[in-house]
C-alpha cells in the first residue's frame, strides 16, 4: 500500500483499520475495510481500471459516480462503478474491456 497518506498535518495519523483481501485480475491485493474499489486499486499502484471499446486505457475520473470512467467487472457482473462501490473481502475484480458480457 505504497500510496497511502499515513501521516497528515491536519487529519492526523491514519487510524488502524481492518485489512481485507480482494482479487484483481487474479492478483491477491490488500485494502482497508473503508476503501472503495477505486481507492483500493490506486493505493496498490493500479491506475488502469479497464480498456475502452477501442482499446484505450481507462482510469477513474470524477470519484463520485458521476462519469463512467471507472467501470469494472465485479464477481462477473460488468458496469460496476469502482469509485462508489465499497471493496469487500474476497471480492473478485477484473478490468472491463469494452462493453460488459451478459450473464445468464
Amino acid at each position, binding site marked *: 500500500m505504497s500510496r497511502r497518506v499515513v501521516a497528515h498535518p491536519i487529519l492526523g495519523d491514519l487510524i488502524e483499520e481492518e485489512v481485507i483481501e480482494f482479487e484483481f485480475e487474479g492478483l491477491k491485493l490488500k485494502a482497508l475495510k473503508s476503501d472503495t474499489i477505486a481507492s483500493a486499486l490506486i493505493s496498490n499502484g493500479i491506475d488502469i481500471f479497464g480498456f475502452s471499446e477501442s482499446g484505450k486505457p481507462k482510469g477513474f*475520473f470524477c470519484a463520485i459516480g458521476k462519469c463512467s470512467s471507472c467501470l469494472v467487472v465485479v464477481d462477473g457482473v460488468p458496469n460496476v462503478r469502482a*469509485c*462508489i462501490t465499497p471493496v469487500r473481502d474476497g471480492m473478485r475484480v477484473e478490468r472491463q474491456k469494452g462493453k460488459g458480457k451478459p450473464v445468464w
Partner: protein
Amino acid sequence: MVKKVQALVIGAGPAGLCGSIAIAENGVEVLVVDEGLVPGGQLPKQTHKFFGHEGFFASVRGFEIGEKLYNDAVNLGVKFLMKTTVSGIYEDVIVLYDRENERIYEINADYVLIATGASERFISFKKNYLPGVYGAGAVQTLMNQYRVLPGNDFLIVGAGNIGLIVAYQLLQAGANVKAIVEASNKVGGYLVHANKVKRMGVPILLRHTIVEAIGEERVRGAVISEVDDSFNPIKGTEKELAVDTICLAVGLQPSIELAAQAGAEIKYIPELGGYVPIRDENMKTTVDNVYIAGDLASIEEASTAMIEGYIAGYNIAQKITGLDLSENISKMKKELEEFRRGPFSGKVRKGLKKFGVEFPEGGFRTEPQKDEGPAGKLRVKIECPQNIPCNPCETSCPTGAIDVGGNINGLPYVDYDKCIGCGVCVMKCPGLAIFLVQELSDYSIVGIPYEFELPEKGEKVLLLDRNGEIVGEGEIEKIVRNSKGKTHIVYLKVPKGLEDNVRHFVRHEEKEEEIVCRCEEITRSEIEKAIEEGYTDFEELRRYLRISMGPCGGRVCRLQTLSIISLKTGIPISELESGRFRPPSIPIPFKAILKGDEKDEI
C-alpha cells in the same frame, strides 16, 4: 407501497444539511437522501479553514463543519439515507436507489428541497482519456477521505479556488505540485489562497493551458503552452513537464438534472455557472413545492450555500406548519446580503439580476491600511488585499486591535497601540494571510502560519519569499503549537531587512486525441465535423453521434458540446436548446427495482 414524507431534502452537503435543520427545528419530519458514503457533501474532503464569520463556521475546517451540521440535524430527528441516489423525479413518484442494498424506494413528498450541488467540468486536450488525468474533486476525495495519493508529481489545470486549494492540500499530503496553469491573465481564486502555494515555490503560470497528456498506458508527462487572447494555444511555446498526474480544476457546473425532472424552469446563466433553475429570493423554483439551495442555484461558497439552505428550509417549514417564520427568514436574507456585497460576488449578483433577484453591492472599506506599525515591536502584518467576506481576525483578537470596518467585506486595519503580538489571529485566519514581524538589533523575527510537519527548534532552514524563491538562510526561533486548529506558528530568525520578504521556509532535506464524451469516446473533431455537416442542435448531435447517451448521462460532455456548437455556429449558449435531462439520474439495475417491490420501510 409509496411512502410519504413531509419534506424531502436531496443532498447532504452544506445547503441540504442547513435546510434540513431549519425544517426540523420547526417540528417537521425531514428525510435527507444523499448518494455519498458519508454525509457532508464536499465538506468531508475539505481540510482547509472556511472564510466568513463565526455564525457560519469561519476558521473551522470543512470536514469538521460537516460533522457538526450532521450531528445537529440528527439531534433534531432528521432521518438520513446515505449511499442512496434519487434516481428520478417522475410524473407519478420520486424514486430512490439504495446502492448498498441494490434496491429502490418510492416516495412522495409535500415539499422537496433540491441541494444536489455541482459536478466538475471537463476539458478536452490530446490524450485526456489516459489514467492519471483526474478531476480536482476526485483527487481531493481520494487523498483526504480515503487517504490515497494517486500520484507523486502533479500538474494542476486552473487557478480558481479549487485548483489553488487542491494544490495546497496535495503539498500537505506530501505530493509535489510542479505547476498550476491558468488560461486567463489572472488568478481566479482568492489571492490569499494563491499566496499560500506561491510562497512554497509552486509556479502559477498565467495565460497557459495544457495541450496534451504524454504517456501510453498512463500519464507520464504533460505538454503545456501559452495561449493568445482568445485562449488558443500559441504554436512554438510548448513545454513538457514531467508529471504523473494531471488534475483538472476548470470549474463546476450545477447538477440540475433532478430540478429539471421536477419541472423547474431552467435557464442558461453563465454568471451562475451555466444551466440553473430559476428561483425567487425565497429559493422557490417555478414549481410551487420545489426549492433549491447551494451550488445547484449558483456556483458559490459553502457559507452562502448554508444560508440559502436555511432560507429554503424556513420557507418550507413555514408552508408546512403555518407558523410565522418571517423573522428567521429575514435574518438569513440579511446575512446573505452581507456576504454578497463584495467583488467576488459580482458575477452572482449580475446573474441573479437576470431573473429579478437583486443584491446590493459595496458599502465596505476598500482602502488598505498604510500604517505598518512601530518598528521593533512584535506586531501583526495582515496581507489580505481583496474584499473577501471574512472577519475571524476581528472577532478572535483578545485586545480588540483588529477591525474590518463594520461590514464583513471590508479590509482589516490594525490598531498597533492595542496589538500585543499574541498570534491568535495568525492561527485563525482562514487565508493564512497574517504574519508576525519584529525588527531586533541583530536580526528580525518573522512568525508564519504553518500547516505542515513541524521542524525542530534551532533547525537551520532556507527562507522563501512570497514567490517561493530562496532569499537566504534562517533558523527556527520558536514554535507555537495549535493542536486544536492545526494552524501552528513558526517563528523564524531572519537576516535584518528581510522581515518584509520572508513568508515561508523549506527544511534542508526537503526540496493525441481530445475526447469530449468519455463514455462513448467521441472526439472534438468528430463533433466539429458533425456540426459542419449541419447537425447544429444538441439533440441532433446526441442522436447522430451518441454524445451524452452514455452511462454518465451527459454530465461530462453536455456543456462542452454546447460550447463547441456555440463556437462553430456563433449562436450564444443561452440561445441553444440544452436537450432533455432524462431519468434515471444514475443507472439502476432491474434487480433493484424488483427488490423495491418486496419491503417498504426506508
